[in-house]
C-alpha cells in the first residue's frame, strides 16, 4: 500500500501521527473492498477481484478530469474517495461568486483564483493519500502525448466545443493506435436534468455521433431584433448584438464584466420602454448574453456520481459498465432512461462514410452554406468550404474572403462542375468534413 501513499498534507505535528496510522490502516477501505473482493451476479468474466484489482485502481491507474466546475468538483471528490490515487485535472476558469452554490470545493475567499489549483489543493487536504495534479489552462494546449498517459478521461464540461475537441482527439488516438483507446466518460447537466455516458472511442458511438440530440441555441432573426422586437430577449439581443459594436467599436463585449452587463441592461430597458415591452431585468440580461444554464449541486451530484461509478467499473471490471447513455430527469418525480446510443456511420469523427448534402440545381453557394449551418448533425456557424481546385468560400482571412466572396452569388452547380466533393471546416468542428453533393 505504501507505494500509493503520496504527499498527504498533515494539519500539524500533533495530527500527523493520527494521519500516519489512518493511512496505514488498510481496513478503512472495508466498504469498497466488499465489491472489489467479491463477485456479483452481473459481474464481468474478466473480473479478477482482490489484491490485483485493488492494486491497479489504487497504485497504477492514472485518470484525467476535464473541468473543475460544477461536475468537476463532484467528480474529484468521488474519484478520490473511490480509490483513484493519481488524478489530474484541467480547467481554464477562475472562481466566480456564482459558482459557490454548487462548486463545493471553493469558498468566498477563493473568488478569482484558478479552479483547477484550488480544487486540487482542497481534495488533497481532505483526502490524504491522494495526489491531484492541476493544470490551469485549455485542453487544446496540451499535445496528444499528454493524453496518452491516462487510462480514463472523465469530462464535466459546460462547453460543447471543448467536448467535441476532446472526443475527436481521443477517437483519433484510438484510430491511430488501438493501444491508445482511452474510455471517455462524459457528463452534463441542466437544472434538474442531466446525462452521463461512456464513450469507447472507435468502438461505441462518440460525442459527435449524437451532436444532433443537442437543442440548437435559441437564435433570434436579425430582422426581429432590429425591427419588430416582441420579447424582452429581443431587446437584450439588440443591445448586445447591434448596439454594443456600434457604440463601442473595437472594444469587445466582456459578459463577465458587470459594467458591460449594466450598459446592456440600460440600453435594453430603454428600448423595451420605447416599444412597451415588459420584462427586461438584470438577471435576464445576464442570462441571455451569457447563455446561462441553471445549475444546482444535487443534479451535478447525481451525474458526477454516475460518471465516477462508470470509471470505477471500467478500472476494476467489478460490474459491467454503462452501454452507453443514461439520462436523468428530476423535475417530474425521478426518472432515468438508460439506452445504447448507436454509432452514426457518417459521423465526421468516427464514422467511415462521407456525409451527403442535398442541394437544388438552382441554389447559389450562399443558399447552400445556409443549408449547412441549419444542419442539426453539423452544428456549425462559420464554415469554410474548399474543393479540389482550392477555396470555394472562406470567411477569413480577409484576402481569401475578398477573393471568394463573389462565389456566394454564383450557382453551386456552376462552381463545382463535375466535382462531387466539398471539404468543410468550421471553428466548431473538431475535424474537417467531406461532403458529397446530391442534387435534388
Amino acid at each position: 500500500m505504501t507505494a500509493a501513499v503520496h504527499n498527504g498534507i498533515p494539519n500539524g505535528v500533533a495530527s500527523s501521527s493520527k494521519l500516519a496510522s489512518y493511512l496505514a490502516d488498510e481496513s478503512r477501505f472495508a466498504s469498497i473492498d466488499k465489491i472489489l473482493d467479491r463477485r456479483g451476479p452481473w459481474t464481468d468474466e474478466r473480473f479478477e477481484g482482490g489484491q490485483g484489482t485493488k492494486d491497479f485502481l489504487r497504485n497504477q491507474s492514472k485518470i484525467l478530469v476535464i473541468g473543475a466546475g460544477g461536475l468537476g468538483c463532484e467528480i474529484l471528490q468521488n474519484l478520490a474517495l473511490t480509490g483513484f490515487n493519481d488524478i489530474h485535472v484541467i480547467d481554464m476558469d477562475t472562481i466566480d461568486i456564482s459558482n459557490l452554490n454548487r462548486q463545493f470545493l471553493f469558498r468566498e475567499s477563493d473568488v478569482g483564483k484558478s479552479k483547477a489549483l484550488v480544487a486540487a489543493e482542497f481534495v488533497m487536504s481532505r483526502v490524504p493519500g491522494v495526489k491531484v495534479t492541476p493544470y490551469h489552462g485549455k485542453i487544446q494546449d496540451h499535445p496528444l502525448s499528454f493524453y496518452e498517459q491516462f487510462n480514463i478521461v472523465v469530462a464535466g464540461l459546460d462547453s460543447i466545443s471543448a467536448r467535441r475537441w476532446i472526443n475527436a482527439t481521443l477517437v483519433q488516438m484510438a484510430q491511430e493506435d488501438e493501444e491508445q483507446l482511452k474510455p471517455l466518460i462524459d457528463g452534463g447537466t441542466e437544472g434538474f436534468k442531466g446525462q452521463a455516458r461512456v464513450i469507447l472511442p472507435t468502438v461505441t458511438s462518440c460525442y459527435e455521433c449524437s451532436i444532433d440530440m443537442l437543442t440548437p441555441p435559441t437564435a433570434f432573426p436579425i430582422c426581429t431584433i432590429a425591427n419588430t422586437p416582441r420579447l424582452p430577449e429581443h431587446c437584450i439581443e439588440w443591445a448586445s448584438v447591434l448596439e454594443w459594436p456600434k457604440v463601442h467599436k473595437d472594444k469587445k463585449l466582456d459578459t463577465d464584466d458587470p459594467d458591460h452587463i449594466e450598459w446592456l441592461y440600460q440600453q435594453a430597458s430603454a428600448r423595451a420602454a420605447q416599444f412597451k415591452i415588459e420584462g427586461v431585468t438584470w438577471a435576464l440580461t445576464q442570462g441571455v448574453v451569457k447563455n446561462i444554464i441553471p445549475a444546482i449541486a444535487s443534479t451535478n451530484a447525481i451525474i458526477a456520481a454516475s460518471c465516477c461509478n462508470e470509471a470505477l467499473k471500467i478500472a476494476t471490471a467489478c460490474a459491467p459498465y454503462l452501454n452507453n447513455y443514461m439520462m436523468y430527469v428530476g423535475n417530474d418525480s425521478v426518472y432515468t432512461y438508460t439506452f445504447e446510443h448507436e454509432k452514426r456511420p457518417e459521423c465526421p469523427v468516427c464514422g467511415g462514410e462521407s456525409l451527403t448534402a442535398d442541394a437544388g440545381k438552382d441554389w447559389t453557394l450562399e443558399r447552400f452554406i445556409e443549408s449547412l449551418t441549419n444542419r442539426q448533425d453539423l452544428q456549425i456557424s462559420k464554415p469554410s468550404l474548399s474543393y479540389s481546385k482550392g477555396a470555394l468560400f472562406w470567411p477569413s482571412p480577409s484576402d481569401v474572403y475578398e477573393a471568394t466572396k463573389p462565389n456566394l452569388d454564383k450557382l453551386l452547380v456552376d462552381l463545382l462542375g463535375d466535382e462531387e466533393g466539398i471539404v468543410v471546416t468550421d471553428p466548431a468542428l473538431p475535424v474537417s468534413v467531406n461532403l458529397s453533393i446530391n442534387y435534388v
Partner: protein
Amino acid sequence: MDDSIDVTHATTGITEIPSYRPDAKTRRYDRQLRLWASAGQRSLESARVLLVGCDATGCQALKNLVLPGISHFTILSPDLTTSQDVATNFFLHPDSVGSPIAEQSVKYLKELNPAVDGSARVEELSSLLISEPDFITSFTLIIASNIEPTLELQLADLLWDVSNSVGGPDIPLISIRNSGFIGRVEIQLREHSVIDTHPDTTHTLRLDSPFPSLEQHARSLDFTTMDSMEHSHIPWVVLLVRAASIWKESHGGKLPETSEEKAEFKEILKKDKVKGDEENYEEALAQAYRVWSKSEIPWEIKQLLEDDSVKNVSSSSKNLHILLHTLSQFTAIPPHLPPTSPSLPDMHSSTTSYVHLQNLYKKEYQSDLARFKSLLAEVLQKIGLEDGTIPDEEVEGFVKNVGGVGIIKGTPLRERKEGKGLIAQSIADYQYDEYDGSTTCFAMHLALLASERFYIAHKRWPGVKVKSDMSEDNREVEEILKGILGQKDPEEVDDIFVECIAEITRGGSGTLPTTAAFLGGIVAQEAIKLVTNQYTPLDNTVIVNLVKSESAKFKL
C-alpha cells in the same frame, strides 16, 4: 465583493432606469434562482432539516441542501468516527477518527455556506423518540440514512401521527437504504401540495372560445386597407380567431369537426394570403389544430376537484385546497372555462400587433383574477377565514397557471413494509421479466425488504463479514423473501430474486462513495421540491441499480 450600486449608476448616468444590479447573495444563488425563483428560495431559507444517521449518503444529501441555503440542519448520531467512515465520507477527515461523527460532519458541512446554521446531537434516536419527540417534530423535513429498520418505522410512525392530527405539521420523511451498488429512497408524507410543477407552457390561448375583446379585435381588422408588410405581420392567434369566427357564422355556430371540415378550414385560411411566403400564415396553418382543441381544465386538475378535501373545505384546509375549491366554483359559471393566463408565446408579428394582443390577454387575466378573488372572498367568509388569508401573490400565481398545481397523497411507511395486502398487490402487479429494468428494480425492492427482515432477526446485515462466504446469508434472505412472496417450499425463488439478493449481500450494507453521492443527489432534489412546493416530487419509492446504471420508481 458587493458592488456598490449607487456609484456605478451615478458615474454612468446614461438613463434614469435604476440599476437593480444584484447583490452578493443574489449572485451566489443566481444559477438556482433561475429554477425556483425568490419564492422558492424563501421557502428553502426557512427550512430546518434533521439528518438521522451520519453516513456518507446522508452527508452528501445535506451538502446539496447546505449549498443552496437551507436555514438550519442538525445531525443526530451517537457514534464515534471510525477510519471506515472517513474513507467514504468527504465531510470527515483522518483527524476526526475517535470524535463524535455528528459533530465532525457538522463542522465540515457548515464550511460550505456561511449563511447556514448547523448543529450536532450526539444521542440515540431510540431514546429521543421517547424523551423528546417534540425535538424531532420541530423540523421541516427529516432524512433518515441507513438507520435500523425497526427505528426507521418508529420514526415514520411518529411523523405520520403528528401529520395526521388536524392542524399538525406535515413533516415528510425521506428514508435511504443502500448496499454496494444498490440504493433505495422512500418518501413518506401525508399530503403534499405542488404550487408550481413548472409545466412546459402556461398559455391558455382560448382559440376555440375566444373572449369577446379578442374576437372583436380579430374581426375589426380590415385586410383591404393593409399594405403587404402589415398583412404579413398579423399574429397567427388573431388570424385563427378571425377565421374561426367567420367559419362559425356559416356553420351554425360550430367549429370544424370532421377531417374534411378541418382541411377546408385550412384552405379558406390559405386563400387570405397575399404573398406565398407569409410566415404568419405558415404559423397559423401549423397551429390550426388549436381551433378545434377544447379549452378546458386539464384532466389532472379535474381529478383534484373531485377530491373530498377540495369539495369540502374548512378553516383548517390548506391554501391550495381552498384555491381549487374556488376554481370549481369559478368554472361552474359560464363560460365554464378556467381563468385566462396572461402569457403569450412569441410569434411572427410586428411589435405593436403583438403588444396589443398581449394586452388583451393581460386584461382578460385581470378580469378573471378579479372574478376569482371575489369568489375566493365568499369561500373564505363561509369557512370562517378572513379575506386575505391567502397571500395575493399565491392567488395570482394560481390563477396564472391553474394547470401547474398538484396534490400528492401518501401512505405510511409501515404499511408499505408490513402490510401484506399492499405488498401482495404490488407483487401481483409486476411481472418478473429480467430484461426489463423496472421489474429488476422491483425485485430489488423486495430483496431489500427481505434484507431488512434479516437484520431484524440477526442484528447484522447479510454479507457484512468481508471475507466469509456469502451463500449462507443469501440462502436465508431467499427464505425470507419466499415468505414475503407467499411462496411455499420446496419451490425455488425466481432467478431474478436470487441475483438481486446476491448483489445486495455482496455490498454487505457498505457504502460506496459513488452510490452515496448518487443517492445524496436524489434525496436533495426531492427535499428541495418538497420544501419549495415546486416541481413534482417522487411518489413514493425509487430503486437505483448502479450495476446496470438504471432506476425505477414505484407508488407503494
